[in-house]
């Protein structure tokens, strides 16, 4: 039996094989994850739903809904009206609080598109006669922005902290993680109240800028939610740390920062993204909870939490204005559910070790 060549090419031409190899492009991980996500029907649906909600709330000034602020003094909240029975006349007027330039432009555009037309109380009105649909749309805007900003902050702190602790190891690691434990044990509500009070500097006159409570609120929420992120990332980095390519870099004298940038961060990206989608709904819930207690978003701005607080007030033994509770609660629950489903789907999609679907 002839000795088999070490490079058994199956009788093919080496050059042709080389050309083929050059032409071959491995499918990038992100593209594979994307196609996996598309195949997960629930996750894909959640993704599309969230995109729709996100665009709708971003373009809220452009929608033909009334202003969430316009009050119509009424003695009791008006119940929902079916769109086809809606006999209200368009009486839209520009009546908003401190619009930024982008929103002001959108409102102008809206006026030229629909004129005075606006939808009627399709989801009913609240005790001050404000349109509930408009309040839900604008409220989702506030909640989404808060959740995104706070999550971004928690991502920044959490990844840096967790990765640094794991890479340094030893005493540094122990102390950094003990700090996380201690912060974990602090009651969340007290922490928020203290932080808000700390940033609350009195003003000498009205011309001085108000402390932007929204920004304080983002920072405080972010500062609370980075803890779990730090733990998750640390665990991941500990595993990476002992991998061959990190050991090789270290042996060649790479600094901790260099390893962090070139090996660790790209590899924990998928974990971070998955955890991000799971943090978003938690932050949103926390925002709702704090606003519900009156600590979060301040009226006349509106958010899911404030809307639900109004709704809960409407539940009593005598008369229930069901729409005040039902619609905001459903809107909030759907968004949260979609975020969780998407997070779940992303985790499956980004897991390289998961079994490949049987496709060629």
């Amino acid at each position, binding site marked *: 039996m002839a000795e088999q060549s070490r490079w058994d090419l199956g009788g093919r031409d080496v050059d042709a094989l080389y050309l083929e190899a050059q032409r071959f492009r491995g499918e990038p991980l992100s593209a594979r994850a994307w196609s996996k996500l598309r195949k997960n029907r629930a996750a894909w649906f959640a993704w599309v739903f969230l995109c729709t909600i996100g665009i709708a709330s971003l373009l809220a000034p452009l929608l033909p809904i009334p202003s969430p602020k316009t009050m119509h003094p009424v003695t009791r909240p008006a119940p929902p009206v079916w769109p086809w029975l809606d006999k209200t006349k368009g009486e839209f007027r520009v009546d908003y609080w401190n619009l930024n330039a982008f929103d002001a432009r959108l409102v102008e555009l809206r006026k030229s598109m629909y004129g005075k037309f606006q939808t009627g109380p399709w989801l009913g009105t609240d005790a001050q006669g404000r349109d509930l649909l408009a309040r839900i749309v604008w409220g989702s805007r506030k909640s989404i922005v808060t959740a995104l900003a706070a999550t971004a902050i928690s991502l920044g702190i959490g990844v840096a902290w967790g990765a640094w602790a794991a890479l340094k190891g030893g005493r540094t690691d122990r102390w950094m993680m003990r700090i996380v434990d201690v912060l974990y044990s602090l009651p969340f509500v007290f922490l928020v109240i203290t932080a808000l009070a700390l940033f609350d500097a009195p003003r000498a006159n*009205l011309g001085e*800028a108000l402390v932007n409570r929204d920004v304080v609120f983002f920072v405080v929420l972010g500062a609370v939610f980075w803890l779990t992120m730090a733990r998750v990332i640390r665990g991941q980095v500990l595993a990476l740390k002992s991998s061959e390519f990190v050991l090789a870099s270290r042996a060649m004298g790479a600094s901790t920062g260099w390893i962090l940038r070139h090996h660790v961060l790209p590899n924990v990206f998928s974990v971070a993204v998955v955890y991000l989608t799971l943090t978003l709904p938690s932050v949103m819930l926390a925002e709702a909870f704090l606003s519900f207690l009156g600590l979060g978003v301040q009226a006349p701005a509106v958010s899911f939490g404030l809307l639900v607080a109004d709704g809960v*007030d409407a539940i009593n033994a005598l008369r229930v204005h069901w729409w005040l509770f039902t619609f905001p609660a459903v809107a909030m629950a759907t968004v949260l559910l979609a975020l969780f489903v998407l997070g779940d789907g992303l985790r499956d999609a980004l897991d390289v070790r998961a079994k490949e679907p049987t496709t060629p």
Partner: protein
Amino acid sequence: MRTERQGLNSLSQADLCRFTTLIASLAMASGRWASPLWVAAFSLVPIALVGWAWSVALSRSAPRADFVFNSGAEVSSLDPAVANGIPEGRVIRALYEGLYTRDPMNGAAVPALAANTQRSNDGLTYTFKVRKEALWSNGDHVTAEDFRWNFERLLAPETASPFASELWCIRGGRELTTGRDAQGEPVAAGAVPLGVTTPDAETLVVELVAPTPHFLELLASYQTSPVHRASLENARRRWPDDWSTRWTKPGYLVCNGPFVLTSRRLDDRMRLSKNERYWDADRVALRTIDVVVIEDATTAFNLYRAGEIDWLDGTIPPSLVDQLLAGDDFDPQPYLGTYFYRVNTTKPPLDDPRVRRALYAAINRVAICDKFLKAGQKPAYTLVPWGRIGTYNSPPGKKEDLDGARREFEAAGFGPNGKPFGTLQILYSSSDQNRAIAEMVADGWHEYLGLDVALENQEWKSYIDRQANLQYDVSRSSWICDYPDVTNFLAVFTSDSENNRTGWKNPEYDALVEQARHLGDLGQRDQLLRQAEAILLDQLPILPIYSYVSQNMVDPRLAGFGSNALNDQNPKFWYWMDDADLERSRRKMNARERKVLSHGPKEGLYSPRAQIERKAGGRTRR
């Protein structure tokens, strides 16, 4: 006096879990987490928790009291000299009795422990005979000396009573509290003896600095109720550090009112039982009263509907008011209180009265009252609620005037072509009702004056701190009077009043109020006070919004419960009517009112005296 009090139950289950995590992580850090001792300790925690929860659940199932009412907030103190709030007043009325009290039917000051009162012709000396039969709950007699000592205690600086300045009408009172006389000159201690003397055990003589028409109203306020000297001094000796909480504990507290305190659990409930040693115990019908603490208006309302609570005093969810008005258990009546916004007059540009006038004129009070509150509250254009108390009539305040508001605003240099105004912040304490009103006010200012308005919500304590330290722009406030007299309202905004909290100082106003306080001639007095209020309404350190109504939800079967402008209720007079009496009282009422289901006892509950009278075939009392 403060009305609403809000708080949060901040320690949630999640926080408890976090706390446990802290302990666990400390244990792990110490490296001995696996030792059997720790394991045993941690397994004991849940067992202890379950046991505790069980004991709480068991103690909660005590039989229902004859009467249950909601206090709305935990009382800060049961010491009448220190307490200063509506919830405190309700309980103190049941526990203590002073020389005078109020008739619940019309709010008039009527004698209680004063068997006989003589006023000298110049109105400067009052001589009271204290009831001989009056006893403390430990059997001691209530004597004139008890009252003398209590006046001294209330005025003493170390008591720090918020009511002390009201009693400066007594000779030597101001000197005792402040160490200075009316001109501000220091006086040596004891140089001006207090004008309260006791010629014999039953007689009390009080000398005043100047005729004070409302002196008996002061004595009818719960703050002047006496406390038991021996038990208090004993408590001070035994517990020098925390005697003030210890001596009001059930079992220790000695009081002289129709009820005694039998048990108390903070932030949950107080059980009051009938005081058998009370001099008029024969006329007290209820044997037990529970005072529960439920801060959430909707929860309290639901419990009322379920018959767990018999009387609810406080916020009724506005969205229900129009429907509740039809029932015969809800009958809002004018109440001597005003809801207003304080303006920080030290902060430019709010130091300009024209700006404040503009803000004042651009509040849509009618919409707030008629469309939102709906229980009969009236738009307020004066500080004095309803524009009148007794013979006093307020000067007519200016009404809403949008053009006038814009004119004033532009005159002050603001408006479309004027200087930038900045952002105005409305401070309010956590409550949905306060928030809704702030939103409506802010909406008006934004729309008519083009202001940027921000709302800021703070929990009760920091809200009060911010207000007291003038760290606000505009702040929600209210004033409920302690006794029905105009000076009680106008004195709030004198320069040195600690309740002023606006930074507004006006010497002319101060002089008018001070002069009126010590004037016997009622006509002239009203005249001076009208001038003072006119100054206040011209300068507007406050923006009145509406006059209060009382919001009692009370079981229709309850009798002896009056409606008066102070909403001062006295449990001594309460009793349950039986079906026949209920039917009779309902026949008298307005035919349009819907009869609501009563949860009270069908057979009624009458005082021993009334029972005898009923047996004799006579009609029931009152």
